[in-house]
């Protein structure tokens, strides 16, 4: 099965976006005559694999290489670099070029920056005295569809960049990506944003619209009705909790990368020692589409059911006489067998993790912390984790959860835990602690916690969640409804106004605005939910784009899909994010790497 997802069912024409990116890349290669060696930044190759098949690149005369510290081995006289604008990468390129010249090799070099060139990078190439040998260009890849309803801007560190290092380039990038979307789908009339970064993005986007307006007359009705932007900072609780949906768990334990997960071949029942295989995970796999968003408990049941019904069919088949059409049906069912086996294998592997007492203990603790009732129990649990020197990231996840729900810890506890952390994991983590404090994730208590108010007002903890027949988004965490998605729910239903008091308790400002980029046809406020104007002409539901600045987890995506599938929901939802994240990938950049 292909790793490139099938986008035919997307609520908005995402295929066109992908095709455009693909065409741009091919054109770029076509413009360089003859055989060439395409050297790709390893970080980009994953994203590129979602846009274009490597065979297609080879058809256009490109040899593929990853950019490494080693000199390139190729017979081609033309070398094309496709890289992000990162300083270290510039140094790699220049050292490769110098290596070639020292060997007396004459080659033509092209450097394409993704998505755009920066002055600093060019400066470095100048300093390294290779600038004159290069042809420089850009490959404007700002966003890529990673599934039918998910668009990623592929910004690895956006969250840490903004909060700790104060670097706001990711915000420009996001605005640019949205602006690009508008060129294809029309100016988005309604914007709601919550959080410092999100409101900045809106500002930048508006400025872009003034400087380089989207020509609306030839697009007609805008396809996207509303965009809702939310900072990750607003809800740091959710990503710190362990995700309990099938896809979320796969990501937590095995790590999903660009819509695929890599596992030992033995897990998938293939007898090949020590080899890893890639399992693609996207909506093209019908079974996966069905179960990805379900709570893991339910997934196991569904798979068991499928397997038994299969077995039943089989025995029926062997014992009774069948008509030809019945045989045909049976064979059709058999075709889905590889999918079933694949997911049974994966689910089985997952359950080796989820049945561990340590995992269940952690889940329990997460819920206790979110309930915010028993401070001492939580405190002692975390203390014990530190004493046992459990993996630092795991400790930090709980600690951050604990700190945020309490609006920071009382000074005494704060200093004590910090000391124990340094003692257990080494003093070099002083810098890690500083990063976390600067980002407000682990800090001293300065005011009374308002988590209880927020929790109650938005009904974040739901008792008696039925994971099998969920009627609320809280099923994705078996009882906790993600704060971010609750906000989205409110924003869609009635806008910010009714929950203004609650919003004020969460970090960052919020804005709500209307834009007119199209002729006179003003949309009414969303609150008149089923107004005619909300329906696009051909009876499709109109679209809401939810953008997470700083990343989104699979569990949250699942919750949004759940909302979208609800009866009486007037909108289709698509999701934009800087990156798909989980608690681990979110915290890791904060842990200061030394050397």
């Amino acid at each position, binding site marked *: 099965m292909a790793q490139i997802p099938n986008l035919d069912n997307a609520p908005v024409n995402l295929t066109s976006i992908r095709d455009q990116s693909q065409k741009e890349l091919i054109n770029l290669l076509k413009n360089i005559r003859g055989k060439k060696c395409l050297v790709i930044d390893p970080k980009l190759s994953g994203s590129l694999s979602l846009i274009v098949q490597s065979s297609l690149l080879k058809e256009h005369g490109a040899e593929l290489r990853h950019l490494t510290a080693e000199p390139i081995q190729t017979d081609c006289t033309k070398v094309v670099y496709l890289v992000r604008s990162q300083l270290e990468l510039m140094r790699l390129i220049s050292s490769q070029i110098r290596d070639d010249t020292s060997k007396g090799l004459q080659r033509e070099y092209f450097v394409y920056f993704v998505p755009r060139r920066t002055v600093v990078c060019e400066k470095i190439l100048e300093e390294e005295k290779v600038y004159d040998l290069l042809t420089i260009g850009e490959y404007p890849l700002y966003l890529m569809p990673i599934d039918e309803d998910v668009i990623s801007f592929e910004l690895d560190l956006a969250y840490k960049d903004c909060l700790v290092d104060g670097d706001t380039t990711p915000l420009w990038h996001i605005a640019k990506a949205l602006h690009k979307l508008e060129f294809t789908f029309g100016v988005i009339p309604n914007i709601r944003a919550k959080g410092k970064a999100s409101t900045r993005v809106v500002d930048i986007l508006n400025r872009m619209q003034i400087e380089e307006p989207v020509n609306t007359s030839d697009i007609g009705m805008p396809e996207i009705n509303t965009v809702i932007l939310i900072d990750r900072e607003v809800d740091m609780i959710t990503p710190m909790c362990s995700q309990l949906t099938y896809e979320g768990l796969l990501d937590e334990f095995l790590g999903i990368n660009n819509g695929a997960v890599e596992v030992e071949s033995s897990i998938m029942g293939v007898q090949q020692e020590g080899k890893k295989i890639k399992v693609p995970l996207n909506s093209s796999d019908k079974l996966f589409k069905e179960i990805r968003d379900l709570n893991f408990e339910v997934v196991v049941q569904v798979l068991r059911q499928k397997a038994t019904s299969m077995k039943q069919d089989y025995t029926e088949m062997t014992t009774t006489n069948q008509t030809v059409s019945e045989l045909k049906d049976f064979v059709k069912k058999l075709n889905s067998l590889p999918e079933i086996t694949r997911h049974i294998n994966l689910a089985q592997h997952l359950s080796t993790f989820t049945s561990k007492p340590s995992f269940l203990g952690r889940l329990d603790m997460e819920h206790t912390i979110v309930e915010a009732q028993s401070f001492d129990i939580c405190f002692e649990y975390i*203390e*014990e984790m*530190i*004493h*046992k*020197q459990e993996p630092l990231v795991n400790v930090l996840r709980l600690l951050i959860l604990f700190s945020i729900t309490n609006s920071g810890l009382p000074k005494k506890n704060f*200093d004590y835990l*910090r*000391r*124990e952390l*340094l*003692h*257990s*994991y*080494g*003093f*070099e983590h*002083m*810098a890690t602690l*500083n990063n976390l404090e600067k980002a407000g994730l682990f800090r001293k208590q300065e005011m009374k916690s308002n988590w209880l108010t927020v929790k109650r007002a938005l009904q974040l903890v739901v008792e008696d969640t039925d994971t099998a027949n969920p009627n609320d988004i809280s099923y994705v965490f078996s009882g906790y409804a993600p704060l971010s998605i609750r906000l989205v729910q409110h924003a869609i239903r009635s806008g910010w106004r009714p929950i203004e008091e609650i919003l004020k308790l969460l970090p960052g400002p919020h804005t709500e605005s209307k834009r007119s980029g199209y002729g006179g046809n003003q949309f009414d406020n969303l609150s008149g939910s089923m107004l005619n104007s909300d329906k696009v002409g051909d009876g499709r539901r109109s679209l809401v784009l939810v953008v997470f600045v700083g990343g989104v987890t699979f569990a949250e995506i699942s919750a949004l899909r759940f909302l979208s599938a609800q009866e009486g929901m007037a909108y289709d939802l698509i999701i934009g994010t800087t990156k798909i994240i989980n608690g681990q990938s979110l915290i890791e950049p904060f842990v*200061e790497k*030394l*050397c």
Partner: protein
Amino acid sequence: LLWKESWELAKNPMASKGSPLQGPRIKLIENVHKLFSETKEHVFESKAAEEHAKLLRMQQELEATTKQPIFVDSSISDTIRTCIVLGNNRAALKVKTEFKVSEKRWYWLKVFALATIRDWDALEKF
């Protein structure tokens, strides 16, 4: 402004990690300690720096006596564990008292360490 300066310094010795010259590094960290202690808000940071320097000194001594370069740059907990694993209980106790390690943590470390070397008898007694 002062705290910014001291942070720069605090990061400095960390950047020089892995250099065999431990002497200058300890001096640097002690400098950091002094800088931090000049302000009131950074009592914690200053203390941490002080302890860090002290730890490095002890680790150096340990490496000299055991002739095994495995101590420097490990955390306090790790140091204690290594000591017990090597059967050097006295040194472990010394580190414990020096850094006022709480009983709770001490027990965890000891149990883990004894389990690593499968010293079940000692574990039983303890």
